[in-house]
C-alpha cells in the first residue's frame, strides 16, 4: 500500500509540474491571480514551485530521499489547499492553475478536495516510509545485510 501511495503521489505531482515548468510566465500570472504574495515574491515562487514539485516527484518515484520528498510535498499540498480555500473564501473567480495555466475556472470543492487528498497521501508516505521497492529500501537492505566473509584466509 505504501508503495502505491508513494507512486500515486509522485505521478500526480509530476503531471502537475511539467506544464508549469514549461510555461513559467503563464504560471506567474496564475500565482499573481491568487493575490496572496507580494509582486516581488510572485516570479521566484512561480519559477521555483514547479521545479520543487518535479524534483520531489522524481525523488519519490525513485524512492530516494523519500521521507524528505514526502515532507516537502505535504508542505506544498498544504500551501495549495490554503491558497485554493482562501481564494474561494475571498470570492475570487480565477483559474486553479493546479496543472498549469488555463484550465477550468476554479471549482471550490474538487480543487480543495484534491489538495487535501494529496496532503493526506504525502503525510502517509512520510510516516510509512518508502517501502521495500525503492532505492531507499534497497540501500537500507545493503547496509543491514551481514558482510560477506572473505574466501581467503589470512596467512
Amino acid at each position: 500500500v505504501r508503495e502505491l501511495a508513494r507512486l500515486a503521489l509522485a505521478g500526480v505531482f509530476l503531471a502537475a509540474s511539467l506544464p508549469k515548468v514549461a510555461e513559467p510566465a503563464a504560471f506567474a500570472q496564475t500565482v499573481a491571480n491568487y493575490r496572496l504574495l507580494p509582486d516581488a515574491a510572485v516570479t521566484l515562487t512561480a519559477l521555483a514551485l514547479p521545479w520543487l514539485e518535479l524534483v520531489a516527484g522524481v525523488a519519490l518515484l525513485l524512492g530516494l530521499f523519500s521521507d524528505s520528498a514526502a515532507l516537502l510535498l505535504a508542505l506544498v499540498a498544504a500551501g495549495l489547499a490554503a491558497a485554493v480555500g482562501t481564494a474561494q473564501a475571498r470570492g475570487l473567480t480565477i483559474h486553479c492553475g493546479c496543472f498549469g495555466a488555463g484550465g477550468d475556472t476554479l471549482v471550490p470543492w474538487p480543487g480543495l478536495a484534491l489538495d487535501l487528498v494529496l496532503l493526506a497521501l504525502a503525510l502517509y508516505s512520510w510516516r510509512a516510509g518508502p517501502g521495500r521497492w525503492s532505492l531507499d529500501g534497497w540501500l537500507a537492505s545493503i547496509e543491514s545485510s551481514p558482510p560477506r566473509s572473505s574466501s581467503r584466509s589470512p596467512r
Partner: protein
Amino acid sequence: VKDTLLGAWALTVLALALALVTNHVRGLPVRPFQAFRPQPRYLTLAEARSWQQSGAAFLDLRPAEDYRQAHVPGALSVPLDRLAQRPWSNLSRQQVLVLYCAGRDCGAHALAAQALEADGYHRLLVMPDGWKGWSQTP
C-alpha cells in the same frame, strides 16, 4: 527527523538551482528577482466603455492621419513612429491606460506596452477590437 529535514533542504536547493539555471539557459522572459508585472489585460468593448467613463486614458496607436479623422473621445494620439518621443509623459504613472489601434489585425499594442512599461506605466489595458470595433458598436 534531522536526516529528513536535511534531505528536504537539499531537494529544495536542488530545485531552486535547476529552476534558475534552466530559466537562464532557455532565455525565458521570467526575471526571478524582479517584481511580477502582469501582462496587459484585454478588454471587451463594453469593458472599454466602462473604463472610459471611469476616467481611464485612451492611447490611439494608429497613424496621426487616422487619429485626426476620428478617435475615441479624449484619446491621446500615440502613433508608433512617435513612441520614442514619449507623448504620454504628462500622464500619471498611476493612470489606467487603454491602448487601441485600428482593429484586431493591428499588432501595435505589444510595442507600445513595452515602451510604456519601460517608462514605469504598469496599469495597461488593451482594447483589441480597436477603433473599428469601437466605431461600429453603438
